[in-house]
């Protein structure tokens, strides 16, 4: 565990990608195959099943630290992390238990079948032989919820450099349902895998936001104008009779979207499409909320497939007949794409993102105002004579999003953040007026600077009306402009509405609370955009 604790400390001490990669590589070199595989598993969220109840851990920790349970709980609330709180309050170790990461994971797994008393004995023994850093990790292994600041991608980069294999090959090898229990490092990473090459995606071309108005982009006729779809950017590859779906984060998500699996036979070999994984049903896109219900789920159940169906809204083709055609112009690629899609029996699995024609930017701007009615976020502008480039480049692709909806609301509850933001009041609940009552309608926790959060934190401490566990009700005094991307009817909320991606746009220090918006204003927005 020493090596892993050391790795964790080094990762935690830096925000710099290169330093993190160096630390990972050094760790990969230092440990054996089994520990290396477990570290990879943990960093890709493959943890052992929980074998001890959290409430028991809390009791035992309080008991060993000779603290009343309430004091332990209050400390936990302030620290914001259970594994850390336990590690900090325990008395110093009285023995040295120096074992590998894999040993401790096996130890934790083996607790499964034991009685609570037996578990307690084993956990207490572990605590008594680990340093503070090691205890923290041991607790994390039991409780789950590792946040190390190492993305999947960063780990892949380190692994790629360590193993000398291409990142895309690593990404492909790490997809799927492997766990450190059912494979080995050699099988997973080193064995020959002919699918490495054929799964390889192209880097995505990413657009910048239009600066102000698109007037200086020249004649609108030189631009391919499409709606900007509100889904997940995806690349669909069919090569050698196999289908691969990549998301923008270089994540292979083929398994998560079984709807696309027929494409392996429908699309000709040597085809790569760029498009949007879009929730879609009955001839029209659905709200992004729908898609959110299935992102991040391990298993895609039949129920989810029915409640959150997806299509692929395609807008570009990068490879055709096995040939890389990214250097052809947008106009040429579009033609190839249209010819291909129109002859295929794609039955709504693939939809062609339609292009719009305008005589002037004013006309385009007017239509853009209708974006929300099409469940789109605005327009994409792509120069017709441009090649498909790599990464985020200015000039040929622009996103021209509609302005967010906004409403002025009064802050009425505040709660401390967790992790990086523990100790700061960063999560607020906002309300609008219903006659002379304030009705809560949304929470928001982003959009302010650290300095503003600190300022509000000290204000909250002095202006608390009541405490409900970690939540404080505060004097209604501050108005914030809340921006959001969409509004839906909700039966779960008292206000009857649910917002999409609400965040704080501005702290309206200039506004007295009486001038905040009303529930009627929200209902008006719901009628138009809901």
């Amino acid at each position, binding site marked *: 565990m020493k090596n892993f604790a050391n790795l964790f400390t080094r990762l*935690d*001490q*830096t*925000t710099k990608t290169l330093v993190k990669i160096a630390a990972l590589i050094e760790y990969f070199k230092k440990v054996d195959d089994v520990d290396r595989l477990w570290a990879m598993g943990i960093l890709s969220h493959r943890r052992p099943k929980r074998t001890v109840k959290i409430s028991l851990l809390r009791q035992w920790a309080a008991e060993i*630290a000779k*603290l*009343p349970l*309430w*004091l*332990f709980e*209050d*400390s936990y609330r*302030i*620290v*914001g*992390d259970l594994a*850390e*709180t336990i590690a*900090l*309050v325990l008395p110093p170790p009285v023995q040295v238990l120096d074992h590998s990461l894999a040993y401790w994971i096996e130890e934790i797994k083996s607790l499964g079948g034991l009685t609570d008393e037996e578990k307690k004995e084993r956990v207490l023994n572990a605590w008594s032989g680990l340093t503070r850093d090691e205890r923290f990790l041991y607790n994390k292994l039991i409780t789950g919820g590792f946040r190390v*600041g190492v993305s999947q991608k960063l780990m892949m980069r380190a692994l790629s450099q360590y193993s000398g294999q291409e990142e895309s090959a690593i990404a492909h090898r790490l997809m799927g349902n492997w766990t450190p229990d059912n494979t080995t490092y050699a099988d997973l990473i080193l064995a020959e895998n002919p699918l490495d090459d054929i799964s390889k995606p192209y880097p995505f071309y990413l657009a910048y936001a239009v600066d102000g108005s698109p007037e200086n982009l020249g004649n609108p006729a030189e631009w391919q104008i499409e709606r900007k779809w509100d889904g997940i950017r995806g690349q669909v590859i069919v090569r050698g009779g196999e289908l691969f779906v990549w998301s923008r984060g270089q994540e292979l998500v083929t398994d998560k979207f079984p709807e696309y699996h027929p494409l392996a036979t429908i699309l000709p070999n040597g085809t790569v499409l760029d498009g949007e994984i879009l929730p879609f049903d009955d001839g029209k896109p659905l709200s992004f909320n729908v898609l959110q219900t299935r992102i991040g789920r391990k298993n895609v159940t039949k129920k989810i497939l029915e409640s959150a169906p997806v299509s692929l809204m395609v807008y570009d083709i990068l490879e055709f007949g096995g040939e890389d055609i990214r250097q052809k112009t947008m106009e040429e690629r579009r033609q190839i794409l249209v010819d291909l899609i129109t002859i295929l029996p794609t039955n709504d699995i693939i939809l062609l993102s339609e292009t719009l024609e305008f005589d002037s930017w004013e006309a385009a701007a007017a239509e853009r105002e209708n974006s929300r009615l099409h469940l789109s976020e605005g327009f994409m502008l792509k120069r017709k004579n441009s090649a498909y480039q790599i990464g985020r480049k200015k000039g040929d692709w622009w996103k021209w999003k509609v302005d967010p909806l906004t409403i002025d609301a009064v802050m009425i509850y505040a709660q401390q953040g*967790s*992790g*990086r*933001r*523990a*100790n*700061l009041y960063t999560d607020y609940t906002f309300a609008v007026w219903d006659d002379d009552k304030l009705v809560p309608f949304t929470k928001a926790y982003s959009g302010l600077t*650290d*300095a503003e959060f*600190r300022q509000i934190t*000290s204000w909250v401490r002095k202006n608390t009306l009541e405490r409900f566990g970690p939540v404080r009700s505060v004097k209604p005094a501050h108005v914030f402009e809340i921006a959001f991307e969409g509004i839906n009817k909700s039966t779960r909320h008292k206000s009857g509405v649910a917002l999409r991606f609400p965040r704080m746009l501005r702290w309206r220090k200039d506004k007295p609370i009486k001038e905040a918006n009303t529930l009627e204003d929200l209902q008006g927005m719901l009628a138009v955009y809901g």
Partner: protein
Amino acid sequence: MKSDLLKFTEKGIYCEAADVYIDPWKPVPRALITHGHADHSRWGSKAYLATDIAAPVIKYRLGDIKMETIKFGEERKINGVKFSFHPAGHILGSAQIRLEHKGEVWVASGDYKLEDDGLAKPFEPVRCHTFITESTFGLPVYDWKPQEEIFADINAWWRQNAADGKTTFITGYSLGKAQRILRGLDTSIGNIYTHGAVENINEVIRNQAISLPETTRITRETDKKLFPGNLILAPPSALNSAWMKKFKPVSIGIASGWMTLRGPRRRKAADRGFPLSDHVDWKDLNKAIEMTEATRVIVTHGYSSIFSKYLNEKGIQASIENTAYEGELAEVNENAEENKEKSD
């Protein structure tokens, strides 16, 4: 019922019998000062009393004030109330103030710590009936490592930075923490440069015939090329300032008790956080109170509601009084006073 020897008023902690205030936060006729930190020694009172060791810094900070001094352990009677100052171990010259009147003994402890930092005279337990305490780190998760370990970490970090050709930049409150860090640094690694606010205090302290390692004040004229491999000591308010930009490539460290927790450590986006505090941790807080044998405790700043609840459960009568004291808050939050010094 007998009335309390000390009362918490809107101006500060007040002794009616003697007509003096302890660490008042508003101007008063007569102020007894525990130590020179800005939240305890404020401008505007007519007359001040502090220990002879704390006085130079207080005078330096508050300017032209009427100041009397007193030695540790010396007794002084004011209107029949017996006053004496006892070491608090917080920073150089910091004191607990003991009052005795009609057989009743109170101690107002200001800020304090038990670990001997080699600069402040170590905390002296003073037996009393009522003890007024801070609880800045009054949670069981705060458990300081011995300072030797922290300094070893700081020096190892500096050494690594020097090997990487980087400048080492460490922050600590300019009065107290900065000098404590200074004395813990391994000067064989490189030179130490200081922010003006730190150096001003260093000068005051050196004038008291207290030796500190050699430091060089950074001025507009200081050549940027001198910094890599060396260390810069600055107050927390210097973080994210334009002034900091000239030290690249740099590794930034913060020395503060708050750095115990991962959340605050990561939120600061510093490279390293070193949990070093001039306040008591949980076990020393409890130990200090035990040693006073006080039957009544008044908790001023910090995790006061949690800590007083805990004391009450232990059978010590405890209550909370609100003050304007901040404890080590200034170490993480931007501090007006530090900013003021910087613009000097």
